[in-house]
């Protein structure tokens, strides 16, 4: 079962990695690439967070424990980003 569509990371890969390393969601992301695709993790981030929290036993309290949000938070073309005049 696919969890991260962009990087084609499966539920099995994520749970096995999370179980082995008992890591925070950020580390889980870096180890599997889940959430690092072109959608910027907009589809799978809650699932990656949930899987990590199920194994690392951390209280979900502060923002530090979840995946970060990085700009650009919406897709933007290279042309627009580089301010290329048409």
């Amino acid at each position: 079962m696919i969890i991260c569509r962009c990087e084609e990371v499966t539920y099995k890969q994520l749970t096995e990695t999370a179980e082995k390393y008992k890591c925070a969601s950020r580390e889980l992301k870096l180890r599997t690439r889940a959430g690092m695709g072109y959608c910027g993790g907009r589809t799978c981030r809650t699932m990656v967070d949930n899987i990590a929290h199920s194994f690392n036993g951390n209280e979900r309290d502060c923002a530090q424990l979840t995946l970060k949000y990085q700009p650009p938070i919406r897709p933007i073309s290279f042309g627009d980003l580089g301010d290329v005049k048409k």
Partner: protein
Amino acid sequence: MSKVIIIGAGPAGLSAAITIAENGLEVLVLDEYMIAGGRLLGQLYEEPNGNWWNGIKESKQLYEKALDLGVKIQLHTAVSNLEKIDSSWVIYTATETYYTSHLLLATGATEAPLPIPGWTLPGVMSVGAAQVMTNVHRVKPGNRGVIIGVNVLSSAIAMELQLAGVQVACITLPKMSLVTKESGNPMNVMNSLLHVSHMAPSAFVKFGSKLMKIEFMKKMGITFFPKNGVKMWDIPIMLRKAVIEIYGDNEVEGVTMATISPTGEVIPGTEEKVQADFVCIAGGLYPLAELAAVAGCPFYHIEELGGYVPLHNERMETALEGLYVAGNITGIEGAKVAASQGVAAGLSIVHNNGTSNQEQNIKKAIQDIEHTRDNAFIQFHPAVKEGKQKLQHYWEEHLNTVKDMVGN
């Protein structure tokens, strides 16, 4: 530079824009969608007094009122980044950069996914997508669908689909996994549904709701919950069956369902196939707070509010100067609460800008939010008020920390 900027043209953003414009300030509203209204657009339901709440009509009224007051509304404009440079907020879109000293984030909510084997097939969509297709774009998502995830949002949308002549085969649970722990557990779901028993039109939600408040009765209730579900608006709601797979060669052809135990374990040998040409996934809503996160707002996870919410006070001010929030970004609630929060945020901006003293009006607006919340027809979480209290507590803690730092 004197212009106030609002991100999000839903009930919160538009109500704030109207309030601010009425007080003589210039306002620009940005929204990534092509129609103003946000999630309000999809809503269509009958209220207990017999009136129909038509989201498209409500959105149009707000939109036109804002335009009449001179509010500039720019649709189809996604904000990709946000930062503070000196004392102004800098807002980046694909082609333009905007500056303001008062920025309101009214970005609303988004849907959480529930992964199920086969959920990447064409024809699988979020329940909100089916709602927008049907109510806003007037396109049927299919002829016969299965909705996975039993909650307030999915049952409301099931009814809307049915009104549009789309058959809903059933509303059922997802197979339990680490990601669907809550939405796949029959006891949990039963518990959360009992709190919506006041939204009366369905026999299902009325179904012995008083008795069910007793723990033992709940267990009995879920154990004896009919395997084929209880019908609501003629749609079977199943709490003792779960979808274990969505199947189809190149697109959705149906789902495989199985009977589950009261704690959500699949009972082997009970698998059956249900034909459908589309599947809706209803994982519930959570605050869409990406921009608040990029801006550097502190966050707290408050279950009752639907997830991580940016720290803010009753006046809708965040911990960052000149940054305000209103609507579902502050917790999942109905459109009327969002609108009343928009008014409060708008007044705070007018006041803080030094345009006019709004102290009395802000107090009244805060009371209005409470009042609207108490009278809300749909409650997404039964303990929203407790969630708000937790947040208030975190805010006071924050103020004390700031004081300590200044004191040292």
